[in-house]
């Protein structure tokens, strides 16, 4: 019941309608069910495997601890979206969750998936494991979608002709951040890099971006991980004393850029630096493929669908998996095929354009199978900006100003 401006009452739903509507719904459901069962007898089936490591990940902030279904929830939503479309095209999509813990072997899991009739795999695996699984799947015509690993080498010297990447690379994320910081005229960076291998890789990507877009690293520091627990009862007392001292005496800088994929220190930096300076990178302003606060370009609809189904907000990993699922759905509906080879040819070709709520079409870099995509810059509560930034031009696609471009690529797809 809604009150009009004049204080009169209007009824959103006529009471008589409620009964009628349920009848109509029942009838519709009946028609639909009839159509579905008669159609599904010869529906083309597309079985997708979801291969993931489920080793626990600890984060500094409790609210960033990943949910048990982080990633696969996005894939499930894409499968639902695909099946809504598939109902009109007589295609049916299914998803099989394969969880690897401890010493479980990704190669054995891959071969088992093939034996169960799976030809497409969405993988959330570390780089080395992904390569082994992909190589085991290659002679069996398995097509992989890498949704979890951001390593540039998977798209460069270690690229594979049967691995498509929906996860942005470290260099794409770093470039997206650098473009914004340079646009903002925050060109003097204090770079702090963690001591683990992946932190160093992100650090390298940030150094490359600084050089590319004209930022200057005034000091390059390492934050040594000396071990210890993420959470203790004495809490922030020591951190509050340590962090200002750690950042004391730095040359004049505009922004502190942190590379800490290992979750050791970056989230402790904001508000604790010796000089009052903003933080970006692994904390503060973070480049990411998705954020629960993103609501431009129709994204609200996807966010609402996700929230309704999973009762939590959609993460970057969920989005990367959703995108992989939708690429499978789109290529299946366009090619009317379930053959991974035909799908890959379509995805690499000029007719593929994915709508993924980022204001422009997403396409595939045919030289290394990396998905081109805008990158969001989030402060954890809001989207601050979306890169590529205005004015960073490119002869083919402005999206190719993010990450390693074709002329620099070391990838040779066989």
């Amino acid at each position, binding site marked *: 019941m809604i009150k009009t401006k004049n204080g009169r*009452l209007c009824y959103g*739903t*006529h009471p008589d*309608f409620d009964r009628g509507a349920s009848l109509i719904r029942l009838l519709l459901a009946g028609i639909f069910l009839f159509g579905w069962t008669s159609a599904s007898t010869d529906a083309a089936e597309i079985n997708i495997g979801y291969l993931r490591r489920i080793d626990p990940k600890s984060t500094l902030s409790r609210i960033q601890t990943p949910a048990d279904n982080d990633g696969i929830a996005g894939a499930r939503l894409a499968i639902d979206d695909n099946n809504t*479309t598939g109902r*009109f095209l007589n295609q049916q999509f299914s998803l099989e969750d394969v969880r690897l813990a401890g010493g479980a072997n990704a190669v054995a899991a891959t071969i088992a998936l093939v034996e169960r009739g799976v030809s497409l795999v969405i993988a959330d695996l570390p780089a080395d494991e992904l390569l082994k699984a992909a190589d085991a799947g290659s002679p069996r015509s398995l097509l992989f979608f890498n949704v979890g690993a951001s390593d540039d080498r998977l798209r460069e010297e270690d690229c594979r002709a049967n691995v498509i990447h929906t996860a942005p690379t470290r260099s794409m994320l770093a470039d997206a951040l650098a473009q914004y910081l340079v646009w903002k005229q925050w060109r003097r960076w204090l770079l702090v890099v963690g001591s683990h291998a992946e932190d160093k890789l992100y650090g390298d990507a940030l150094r490359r971006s600084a050089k590319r877009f004209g930022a200057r690293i005034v000091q390059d520091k390492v934050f040594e991980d000396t071990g210890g627990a993420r959470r203790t009862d004495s809490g922030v007392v020591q951190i509050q004393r340590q962090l200002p001292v750690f950042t004391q005496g730095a040359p004049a800088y505009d922004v502190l850029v942190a590379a800490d994929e290992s979750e050791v220190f970056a989230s402790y930096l904001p508000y604790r630096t010796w000089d009052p300076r903003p933080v970006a990178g692994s904390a503060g302003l973070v480049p990411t493929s998705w954020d629960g606060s993103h609501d431009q370009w129709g994204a609200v609809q996807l966010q609402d669908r996700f929230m309704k189904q999973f009762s939590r907000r959609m993460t970057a990993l969920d989005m990367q998996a959703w995108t992989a699922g939708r690429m499978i759905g789109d290529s299946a509906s366009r090619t009317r095929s379930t053959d991974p080879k035909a799908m890959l040819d379509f995805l690499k070709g000029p007719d593929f*354009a*994915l709508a993924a709520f980022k204001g422009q079409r997403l396409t595939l870099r045919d030289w290394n199978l990396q998905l081109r995509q805008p990158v969001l810059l989030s402060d954890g509560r809001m989207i601050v900006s979306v890169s590529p930034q205005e004015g960073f031009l490119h002869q083919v696609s*402005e999206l190719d100003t993010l990450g390693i471009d074709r002329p620099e690529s070391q990838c040779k797809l066989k």
Partner: protein
Amino acid sequence: MTPKTSIGRSLRRRRSRFAGTRNCLLGMSVFVLIGAQASAFTAYVSNEKSNTVSVIDTDKFTVAKTIKVGQRPRGIELTKDGKFILVAVGDDDTIQVIDVRTHEIVATLPSGPDPELFTQDHTGKILYVANENDNTVTIIDLERRVPLGEVQVGVEPEGMGLSPDGKILVATSETTNMAHFIDTEMRQIVANVLVDARPRFAEFKRDASEVWVSSEIGGTVSVIDPVKHEVKKKITFDIPGLRKEAIQAVGISITRDGKTGFVALGPANRIAVINATTHEVQKYLLVGQRVWHMAFTPDEKYLLTTNGVSNDVSIIDVANLRIIKTIQVGELPWGIAISQQ
């Protein structure tokens, strides 16, 4: 008021009660004044961000009034009798009914959640609404203002185009990438046509020979044969100096004679003028930023476009294919409808 009272009746009562009040008289005198000038029509523009509708006098091409409406107004149309403006206010999950004389919101329609675009049948008795959030098209009885039923379509339905005889409704679904052909009598899908990514708008030619569907992310317009349900031609756009990603086809308007089509190209900031017989692009007209939708004046002398990011409306002289004026409206103008009187 008892719950059984129909809204239509209560409205008629309400209007007679208010007849003769100062407000109403003022509204009527404005109406009469506009009616007296042969060429003057009224355009209504929904401003997505400022939650208003700008009322434009198309004789002077100035904003005559701004009406406050609900949250996030987008799709906008006039009822066939010209008495009411219908505006979908998505974040309020309803369609508001505005009296064109008083500019007051007089009722709301049970549109289903998050309505965006809608269309009326030729009698003006039935409204078809796209509900993006639950993959349905809701059918509403406009006189009784009650829902009659719904049709399940693909993911995120948006564009709604009705065939001239009212028998076929084309609904586009943005994530399923299809134009669904719905038999309006049976209220059932009779065909699905795959088009390019994120289809947003559907428009029939007056002779029903073609239906045009725009794809925002695909950046194309599919010309569909409504009998064979096949894409017979795909219109593509190539603008020197612009990347493909910036060309995003949205609103479509086709002249009554079916000879010329206009397609709004979103962030390309241009309207493509298309020879609707050969489907070749004749010209690109530079308008404001992120152009969404368009509407002709009833004499088809002018075409008005809503330019989302630059907060203005461009007036195109249809015969000469030139922009003759730009009018500032509210924030993020989206939809537009023009009175036939």
